[in-house]
């Protein structure tokens, strides 16, 4: 029997979305805008009106009056007839009865379930390094939620010496360091690897950012393994001592742990869908169960652009996957055409430096640095002639040209890139590569 797109996509039925961050919220709105007429229920354990996470370590932390940056106005949820249950945790999913259970005992039926469950901060198994929300005088934090940012801000204001030790020299750690410096704190960053950001970028970028943070007064220590955290012997303070494997110790008013994430895949596992490096989804974000979908940081999807399975932690990926899944569910994807691949992009703001990244550099065999000045340059990553990624510091032009080249599969003239000439489309793009 043949079904038309309309018949396959009835546009009604109950959609339940678990996770109300960038992915979940965008999916809810997209779904409604694409014409879904059934109920849409958005659930998140975070009680806050859904907000942007990237500003937490930057603007939110630094602003005098701490406030979140809402993704959508509260009114917009009502206007789009999106029912949200905030402050509710989903405790169970039953894929046979198509029901989820909330922590208050409520059961909700779904026709289509969307898992936008994201990640949680990883706390490495180090003695004394426990993050306990219930402690009044906390001194160990992660940076993941608005509540985290609030608690960290309070800890800084209440601290005696304003000395923060950040464990982990990744983006969260470095952005937080930049904010703390702006707020007049003393900052120590401790990184286990020989260089910061070693998992995600080249030595060129690591070296630049190392220099930047050192110049701003950050004590930046690499190749240092934290083995223990303990309260300072003096009982009158909440200070902590961070002990490293080489015997060195660093005293902190409070500690930020930024050493990566763990995926929230528990519900997916319970529902019996395939999970590997993330919840495995096809090109339209459907899991191995046709009624269960997944989007955002928690997913692993085959990239037609990079010809491998990838998992991305980014706003771009959350937004693009949300759009795609909504189009699929409402029958709006063009029939018979391959799904358009998207190009990953990221950004980071540290001090007065704007870092913009397009593409993924993994697997590069050559890099070309296009330098305008000490504070303005870009790194172009190639595999043979194929441009994989561009990282640009205070150099939006390079970011934009890199985006166009990767999106349109253009061949980039490396000689032009290496010349002293200003970047331009005309000089840079040779032809469409095959």
């Amino acid at each position, binding site marked *: 029997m043949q079904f038309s797109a309309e018949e396959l996509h009835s546009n009604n039925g109950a959609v339940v979305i678990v996770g109300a961050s*960038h992915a979940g919220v965008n999916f809810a709105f997209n779904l409604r*805008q694409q014409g879904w007429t059934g109920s849409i229920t958005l659930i998140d354990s975070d009680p806050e009106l859904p907000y*942007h996470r*990237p*500003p937490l370590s*930057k*603007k939110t932390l630094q602003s005098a009056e701490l406030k979140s*940056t*809402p*993704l*959508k*106005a509260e*009114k*917009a949820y009502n*206007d789009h007839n999106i029912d949200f249950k905030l402050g509710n945790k989903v405790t169970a999913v039953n894929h046979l009865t198509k029901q989820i259970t909330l922590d208050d005992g409520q059961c909700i039926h779904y026709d289509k379930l969307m898992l936008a469950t994201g990640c949680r901060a990883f706390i490495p198994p180090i003695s004394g390094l426990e993050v306990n929300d219930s402690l009044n005088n906390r001194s160990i934090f992660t940076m993941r939620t608005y509540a985290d940012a609030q608690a960290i801000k309070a800890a800084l204001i209440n601290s005696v010496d304003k000395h923060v030790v950040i464990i982990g020299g990744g983006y969260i750690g470095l952005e937080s360091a930049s904010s703390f410096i702006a707020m007049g704190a003393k900052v120590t960053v401790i990184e286990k690897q020989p260089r910061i950001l070693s998992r995600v970028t080249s030595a060129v970028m690591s070296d630049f950012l190392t220099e930047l943070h050192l110049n701003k007064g950050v004590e930046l220590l690499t190749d240092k393994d934290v083995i223990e955290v303990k309260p300072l012997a003096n009982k009158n303070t909440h200070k902590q001592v961070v002990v490293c494997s080489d015997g060195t110790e660093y005293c902190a008013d409070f500690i930020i742990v930024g050493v990566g994430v763990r995926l929230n895949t528990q519900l997916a596992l319970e529902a019996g869908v395939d999970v590997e490096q993330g919840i495995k989804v096809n090109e339209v974000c459907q899991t191995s169960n046709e009624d269960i979908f997944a989007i955002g940081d928690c997913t692993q999807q085959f990239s037609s652009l990079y010809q491998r399975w990838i998992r991305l932690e980014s*706003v*771009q990926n959350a*937004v693009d996957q949300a759009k795609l899944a909504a189009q699929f569910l409402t029958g709006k994807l063009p029939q018979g055409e391959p799904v358009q691949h998207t190009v990953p992009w990221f*950004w980071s*703001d540290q001090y007065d430096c*704007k870092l*913009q990244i397009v593409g993924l550099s993994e697997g590069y065999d050559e890099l070309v640095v296009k330098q305008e000045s000490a504070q303005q340059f870009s790194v172009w990553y190639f595999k043979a002639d194929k441009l994989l990624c561009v990282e640009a510091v205070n150099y*939006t*032009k390079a*970011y*934009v040209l890199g*985006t*166009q080249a990767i999106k349109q599969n253009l061949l980039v003239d490396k000689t032009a890139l290496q010349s002293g000439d200003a970047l331009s489309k005309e000089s840079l793009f040779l032809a469409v590569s095959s």
Partner: protein
Amino acid sequence: MAKVIFVTQNNGSMEVEGDSGSLMELAVANGVAGIDGDCGGVCSCATCHIYVDPADFDKVGAAQEVESDMLELDDKVTEYSRLCCQIDVSDQIDGMTFVVAN
């Protein structure tokens, strides 16, 4: 305090008012269709593209370098394009009309 009008791609029109923050934040707070502000207002995503009325263009002025480069990512860019996360809500823009590009 500024009252401004957003005209969306489906020819909807919405009058909103505010006294601080960016024009993007004002649009998002009022659910203006086509203004997403995916990056939260740091000129990194180009999802808050608007056209300024040519007669009033001087009131907001031209985009700075980062913004005009970012606008190149959108095929629908014109000489009156701006990313509204880079426009402050102030008396200066009171009474203006902005056409949402997407």
